[in-house]
């Protein structure tokens, strides 16, 4: 049975600078909560420094959270330490990295990369390894598999290498896959192929994907749900089509208006807004986006907005667009388009 994965109030702070008494803390992730459901792709979008990769790393257990829970198969695995527990978790939750040029060992063949997880996790008997590798390579569209298996990474193109990385992740038959910008280093003409592969895999293998990206158009293409992250917080979440066509949060709007769009050839729409992403360093109470926000109200400067559901499953962290029910009457609510 697959139940996906749930994160609750996941928080990660890093010290920065070199203060003597107390060092400043970057709030890379603050109270991040969401669920990855089997057979769906959830896109986690944001700019660099928003904390989206940190969340991916926390889920893959590459880093330990400051606080919060990662619930998998009914148990909190965020702080599990025993080797057996970690082995078990890693066989279920796999990660695909951005750079297929550095995530493969240059002196080992494709076969080695795929055989290793199979042997480590004792998933197939030794005699069955070659068959398993053949199946994996075929699944990710690398044919003929026997020829590909004998190759070294440098003999493959970027897209082929990323497919090997995906095959390696699939080798252990995971239920959850975290893909951190898996296409951003690839040529445009082959990116779609990797996105299509993710779509096929979610369907055929009922995988729960977390797709970490800065590319909103690709998120719309593959994702069922979208999480928008800003300065360590999730500021909007909901069904992909809803979030990207009727955004609630002003930051989502800003991101959308910045995407190159062949159809608005003469913009002038886009305003330069002040304020930078240092909002995640020792944040004061209040909305972290307020300095860049055009609709900020007084409340935004001292009270941190909560993630409030405005429509079914569509929530935002904004006093104006998504006021908490108790306050709804006090704040002027902009009509939704």
């Amino acid at each position, binding site marked *: 049975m697959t139940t996906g994965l749930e994160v609750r109030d996941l928080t990660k702070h890093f010290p920065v600078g070199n203060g003597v008494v107390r060092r400043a803390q970057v709030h890379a992730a603050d109270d991040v909560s969401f669920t990855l459901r089997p057979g769906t792709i959830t896109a986690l979008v944001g*700019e*660099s420094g928003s904390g989206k990769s940190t969340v991916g790393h926390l889920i893959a257990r590459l880093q330990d959270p400051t606080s919060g829970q990662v619930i998998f198969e009914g148990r909190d695995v965020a702080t599990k330490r025993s080797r057996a527990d970690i082995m078990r978790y890693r066989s279920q939750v796999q990660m695909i990295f951005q750079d297929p040029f550095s995530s493969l060992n240059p002196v080992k063949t494709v076969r080695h990369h795929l055989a290793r997880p199979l042997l480590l996790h004792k998933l197939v008997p030794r005699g069955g390894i070659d068959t398993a590798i053949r199946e994996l390579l075929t699944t990710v569209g690398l044919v003929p598999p026997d020829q590909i298996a004998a190759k070294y990474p440098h003999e493959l*193109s970027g*897209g*082929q290498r990323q497919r090997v990385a995906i095959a390696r992740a699939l080798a252990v038959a995971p239920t959850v896959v975290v893909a951190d910008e898996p296409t951003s280093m690839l*040529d*445009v*003409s*082959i*990116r*779609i*192929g990797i*996105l*299509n592969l993710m*779509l096929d895999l979610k369907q055929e293998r009922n995988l729960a994907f977390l797709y970490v990206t*800065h590319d*909103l*158009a*690709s998120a*719309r*293409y593959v994702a069922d749900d979208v999480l928008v992250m800003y300065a360590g917080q999730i500021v909007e979440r909901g069904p992909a*089509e809803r979030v*990207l*066509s009727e955004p609630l949060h002003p930051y989502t709007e*800003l*991101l*959308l*208006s*910045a*995407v*190159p*769009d*062949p*159809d*608005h*050839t003469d*913009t002038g729409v*886009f305003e*330069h807004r002040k304020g*930078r992403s240092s909002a995640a360093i020792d944040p004061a109470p209040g909305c972290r986006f307020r300095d860049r926000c055009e609709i900020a109200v007084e409340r935004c400067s001292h009270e941190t907005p909560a993630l409030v559901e405005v429509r079914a499953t569509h929530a935002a962290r904004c006093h104006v667009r998504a006021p908490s029910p108790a306050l709804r009457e006090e704040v002027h609510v902009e009509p939704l388009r």
Partner: protein
Amino acid sequence: MIATVPGPTDEASVTPETLIEVKNLAVTYGEVRAVDGVDLTIGAGEVLGLAGESGCGKTTVANALMQILKPPARIADGTIRFRGEDITHDSEEALRRFRWRNVSIVFQSAMNALNPVMKVGNQFVDMMRAHERISKRNALKSAGELLEIVGIDERRLSSYPHELSGGMRQRVIIAMALALQPELVIMDEPTTALDVVVQREILQQVRDLQRERGFAVLFITHDLSLLFEFASRIAIMYAGEIVEEAPARELQVRALHPYTEGLLRSFPPLRGPVARMTGIPGTPPDLAHPPKGCRFNPRCSYCSPDRPELYALQTEVRPLLHEAAPDHRVACHLVEAGR
């Protein structure tokens, strides 16, 4: 510019507005022809977009225009004319004066091109004084004005590069590229390393400046959707050749080359229905052994033995750019045969 080598007096009319005219340019890295027979014209005040995937030769074209190719790369064939004068074989000294003053370049990771141990202002002064007689004070004054134009406080002249964000450093480089009022600014993936919001801000500023000051831009990128918004004309490069060239709007609605069609199918839309997209099968060729005939033929869905005559052309004969519609050139046997 130093005395011109008389070029071939061919039909290509060098109108007064033509800034750069590249004819049959070939650049080799040893045996590999990274750029092979490229023709390109950039008019004064025009924004020409040059799009293609990595390894297609677009950066090599930019470096050839600036004549900053590093060995073993060299111009093996063709001419580059600036305002009608052949600069292909100019002396180093003539080229030194040509660069920055006539044509400047902003590199992809230009934000790493600043000297880390020198204040921003002094880097402007150095660059400007290498090219013209100007006092340090005046150079700093003009540098301050340039920074303000690209949206940076002039007090940043006394900052070191590490005190600026990536986006700010990229703006500094753009300001430097504009300092000597060149007629052409080459921008090679100027915003690829930046976040979308910062990218949008910088591009907007570049376009406003371009309109105000009237310099031409050669904008090189892999992101075609960006060019539709910012370029007036677009040239598509594949495997060292230009395969299609047309006004931006025309290319967007009426792409003719199967490769351009494929590129357009590679960008998921932000609006409208979401349909399964196909991209382009296969990968770009190894330029040490380019396919015979049309270099795109192994990836082209219109190339099949079912049409033997066309197939023979596609796999044997190199297609040349021809005018398929007014102001719309394409190198494709299929288009030439009427599809």
